[in-house]
C-alpha cells in the first residue's frame, strides 16, 4: 500500500467524521452581532459572553444527541472526583468502585507531590495515604500550615457526602499521627457553571474556588481574585475568623481541627509593635481589639485601641509585624472607648480614609492644628449626618461599579464613605479592579456621578499611599517616591516612542485620535512626556518617563 493511499483514506475519514456545527455557529454569531465594542474592558467582557454562548451552544449540541457519542461517553465516565488542596492542588478521578482512573497535579506543587508515582487502578484510600505522606515529606503540610481542603464531586449527593466523611476522617487520622495537629476542611462541590468558570479563570481547583466564593460572600471587603493567591491554611484562618466574629460559619464546609496560626505573630508580639509605635504604655490602653484580616494582598492584623484622648488604628503585617498603615484620631473628651458602629466605620475603610490626611505625618504626633482640624471635621460631619440622603451607600457603590463596568466580585473596595463637600453630600468610592484604581464621587441626593477617575494601579502599596494623585494636584505637582528620583538629565526616549507607548497602551491607532499634544516636562527630578489626546468621547492623558519609557500615570476620562 502506498503512502498516498493512506493519506487519501485519512483525509476522507477525518472529513467524514467532522461533525456539522455550521448552523449552530451561524446562529451563535448572529447572537453576538450588534454588541457594542469599544474599549478594551468591554472587549474582554464580550469574549466572556462569547464563551458562555459557546458553552451554552455546546450543551445544545450535546442535548441534541450526537450519534455514537452517548455510548462511549457513559463507558469511561468518572464516578467521583476528589480534589485535595493544601497549596499543592491535586485532582483524583475514581470510578464507581473507587479505583483510581487518574491523578492529576493541578499546579506545580501538586505535580511535585505526585512525582513519578502511578496510581492508576489503585484504591482511593491507598492513593490518598501516599499523597498525604508525600505532602508531609515535601513540607507542604507542617506545623505552620496544617490545613487541607477535601472537595468531593459526585452526581449522587448521598454517595458524595459519604465519601467526603470517610476521606475527612481518614486524612485527619493520618495527620494526627504526626507531631502536629491537622486541620481538615471538607465539602461537596455543587454543580455550578459560574464556579467552574472562576476556577478556570484563576487556574485553581473548583473546590478552592467554592471555598473562596463562600468566604468572599461573608465579607464584602474581600474580593475573589485577591483570595485566590492564599493557601488553604490562610483561607482556613479567615474562615475561622468569620465564624468567630459572628459573620457566620460557611454553610457547606465541614471543619475538623484548627488552622495553624503559628506562622503569624501572637497578640503579645503585635501589642509590642503597635504600643511602641504609638508610644503608649499598655496600662493606659483601653478597648484593645485585634483581628486577623486580609487586606492589601496580605494577611494583616487590624488593631484598634484607645489611649488618652486618641483612637489608634493599625494594620500590621501578620507575618513580620511591619506596620502597613496607621492612624491616630482625636476623640473628644468624654467619648466612650467603644467604636461607633456607623456605616462608614467598618474595618478596612477607616484606615484608608485617613491615609491621605496622615501621609506627611506618618509616625509623628499630629500637630495641634491638625488635631483641631480633625475635631472640626468630626463635629461638622456629625451635624451633617442626620440630613437625609436619597440613596444609600450600597446604591452608590452599585452606580460606580456599573459605570466602571465591573462586578462587585471583581472589585476590591478601598473606601466608601459619605462626605460633605462644596455644599453637596456625596459618596466617595474608591476601588480596585483588574490593574486599575477607580475613584468615584456620587451625589448622595440623586445618584449622579460627580467625578470619576481610572488610573493604572500602583505596583507598590507605599507608592499608592503617597501618590494619591488627583486631577487637581497632578498639574500642580507630581509626587514621586524617593527611590524613583533621578537626575534625569538625559532623554533616551523619543517623542515618537512615547507616543507609541501611550497609543498601544490605550489600544488606539494614530488615526483614531485627535487633539494630540505632547510636552516634555521636568518635574520632581523626573523628565517626562505629558501626552494628551482624545478619542471618541474619552480624553486620555499619559505621563511617560522620558528616561525609561515607562508609563508613570494615565487617566482616561469621559469628555462631555
Amino acid at each position: 500500500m502506498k503512502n498516498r493511499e493512506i493519506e487519501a483514506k485519512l483525509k476522507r475519514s477525518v472529513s467524514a467524521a467532522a461533525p456539522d456545527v455550521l448552523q449552530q455557529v451561524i446562529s451563535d454569531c448572529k447572537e453576538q452581532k450588534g454588541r457594542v465594542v469599544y474599549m478594551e474592558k468591554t472587549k474582554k467582557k464580550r469574549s466572556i459572553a462569547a464563551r458562555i454562548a459557546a458553552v451554552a451552544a455546546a450543551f445544545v449540541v450535546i442535548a441534541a444527541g450526537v450519534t455514537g457519542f452517548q455510548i462511549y461517553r457513559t463507558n469511561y465516565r468518572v464516578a467521583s472526583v476528589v480534589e485535595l488542596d493544601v497549596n499543592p492542588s491535586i485532582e483524583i478521578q475514581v470510578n464507581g468502585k473507587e479505583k483510581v482512573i487518574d491523578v492529576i497535579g493541578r499546579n506545580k506543587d501538586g505535580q511535585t507531590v505526585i512525582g513519578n508515582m502511578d496510581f492508576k487502578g489503585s484504591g482511593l484510600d491507598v492513593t490518598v495515604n501516599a499523597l498525604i505522606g508525600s505532602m508531609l515529606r515535601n513540607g507542604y503540610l507542617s506545623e505552620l500550615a496544617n490545613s487541607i481542603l477535601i472537595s468531593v464531586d459526585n452526581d449522587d449527593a448521598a454517595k458524595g457526602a459519604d465519601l467526603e466523611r470517610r476521606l475527612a476522617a481518614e486524612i485527619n487520622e493520618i495527620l494526627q499521627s504526626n507531631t502536629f495537629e491537622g486541620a481538615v476542611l471538607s465539602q461537596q462541590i455543587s454543580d455550578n457553571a459560574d464556579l467552574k468558570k472562576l476556577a478556570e479563570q484563576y487556574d485553581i481547583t473548583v473546590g478552592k474556588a467554592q471555598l473562596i466564593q463562600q468566604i468572599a460572600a461573608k465579607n464584602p471587603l474581600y474580593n475573589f481574585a485577591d483570595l485566590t493567591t492564599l493557601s488553604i491554611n490562610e483561607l482556613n484562618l479567615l474562615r475561622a475568623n468569620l465564624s468567630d466574629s459572628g459573620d457566620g460559619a460557611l454553610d457547606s464546609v465541614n471543619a475538623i481541627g484548627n488552622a495553624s496560626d503559628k506562622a503569624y505573630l501572637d497578640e503579645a508580639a503585635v501589642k509590642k509593635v503597635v504600643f511602641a509605635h504609638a508610644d503608649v504604655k499598655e496600662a493606659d490602653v483601653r478597648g484593645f481589639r485585634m483581628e486577623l484580616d486580609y487586606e492589601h494582598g496580605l494577611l494583616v492584623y487590624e488593631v484598634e485601641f484607645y489611649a488618652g484622648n486618641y483612637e489608634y488604628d493599625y494594620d500590621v503585617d501578620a507575618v513580620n509585624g511591619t506596620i502597613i498603615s496607621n492612624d491616630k484620631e482625636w476623640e473628644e473628651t468624654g467619648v466612650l472607648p467603644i467604636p461607633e458602629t456607623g456605616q462608614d466605620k467598618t474595618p478596612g475603610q477607616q484606615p484608608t480614609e485617613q491615609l491621605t490626611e496622615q501621609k506627611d505625618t506618618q509616625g509623628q504626633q499630629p500637630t495641634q492644628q491638625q488635631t483641631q482640624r480633625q475635631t472640626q471635621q468630626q463635629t461638622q460631619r456629625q451635624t451633617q449626618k442626620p440630613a437625609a440622603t436619597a440613596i444609600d451607600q450600597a446604591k452608590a457603590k452599585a452606580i460606580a461599579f456599573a459605570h466602571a463596568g465591573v462586578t462587585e466580585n471583581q472589585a476590591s473596595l478601598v473606601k466608601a464613605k459619605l462626605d460633605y463637600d462644596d455644599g453637596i453630600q456625596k459618596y466617595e468610592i474608591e476601588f480596585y479592579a483588574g490593574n486599575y484604581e477607580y475613584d468615584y464621587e456620587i451625589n448622595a441626593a440623586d445618584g449622579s456621578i460627580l467625578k470619576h477617575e481610572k488610573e493604572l494601579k500602583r505596583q507598590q502599596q507605599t507608592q499608592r499611599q503617597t501618590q494619591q494623585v488627583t486631577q487637581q494636584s497632578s498639574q500642580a505637582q507630581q509626587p514621586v517616591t524617593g527611590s524613583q528620583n533621578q537626575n534625569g538629565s538625559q532623554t533616551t526616549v523619543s517623542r515618537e516612542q512615547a507616543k507609541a507607548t501611550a497609543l498601544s497602551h490605550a489600544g488606539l491607532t494614530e488615526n483614531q485620535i485627535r487633539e494630540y499634544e505632547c510636552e516634555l516636562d521636568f518635574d520632581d527630578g523626573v523628565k517626562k512626556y505629558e501626552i494628551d489626546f482624545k478619542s471618541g468621547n474619552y480624553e486620555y492623558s499619559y505621563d511617560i518617563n522620558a528616561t525609561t519609557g515607562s508609563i508613570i500615570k494615565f487617566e482616561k476620562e469621559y469628555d462631555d
Partner: protein
Amino acid sequence: MSYLSTVTETEREAQLDRYIAGVAKEDWEAMTQLYNATQASVYGFALSILKNPQDAEDVLHDCYLQIHAAASGYRSQGKALAWILTITRNLCMQKLREVGRYQHIEAEDWEKYVEAQSGMDSEDRLVLLACMERLSDEERQIVMLHVVSGFKHREIAKLLKLPLPTVLSKYNRALKKLKQYLLKENAYEEQRN
C-alpha cells in the same frame, strides 16, 4: 499533494481571505463556504491535539465563533489557514487547561466512535483508528496538518515550532506505523473470512 484539491495553494488562500472578509461583514454565505472549506482541517487538528471527539467538536464550534469575532481585524498575509489553525490550537490549549488533562479514551471507545461514523469505508475507519491510537501526539498532529490541511512540512515545522528534519522524520515514521497497522489488520480480516 496535487490530489488534495484542484486549486493551487495561492488560489485557496485568496479564496479563504475573501470568505473571511465576508464573515467580517456578517455574510453567512461566506461563513458557510469558509466552514465547508476548512472544517475538516480544524476538526482534524483539534482531534489530533485533544484526542477526544467531544472536545474537538466544542473547539470546532468555538473556532468559527472566534473567527467571526476576529474577522474584522484580520489582515491577509496569504496565510488564512495558518491563522485559522492557530486559533484552533489556542482554543485546544484553553480546552486542555479547562479540563486539566487529556480526556483519555480507551481503545474500545475509539472503536465505537469510529464504528459510529458514516461516509467512510472500513479501511478509512481503520486508518482513523490507527491515527488516534497508534501515533504519538506529535506524529498525529503532523500527519493531520499535512494530510488533511495540506500543509507543507516546512509550514508544519513553523506552526508546531519544531525543526524541519524532526517533522520530516516523524511524518515518515508515522506513515510507516499506519501502513503496518493496516497490513496487519487486513491480514487478520482475510484470515477470519
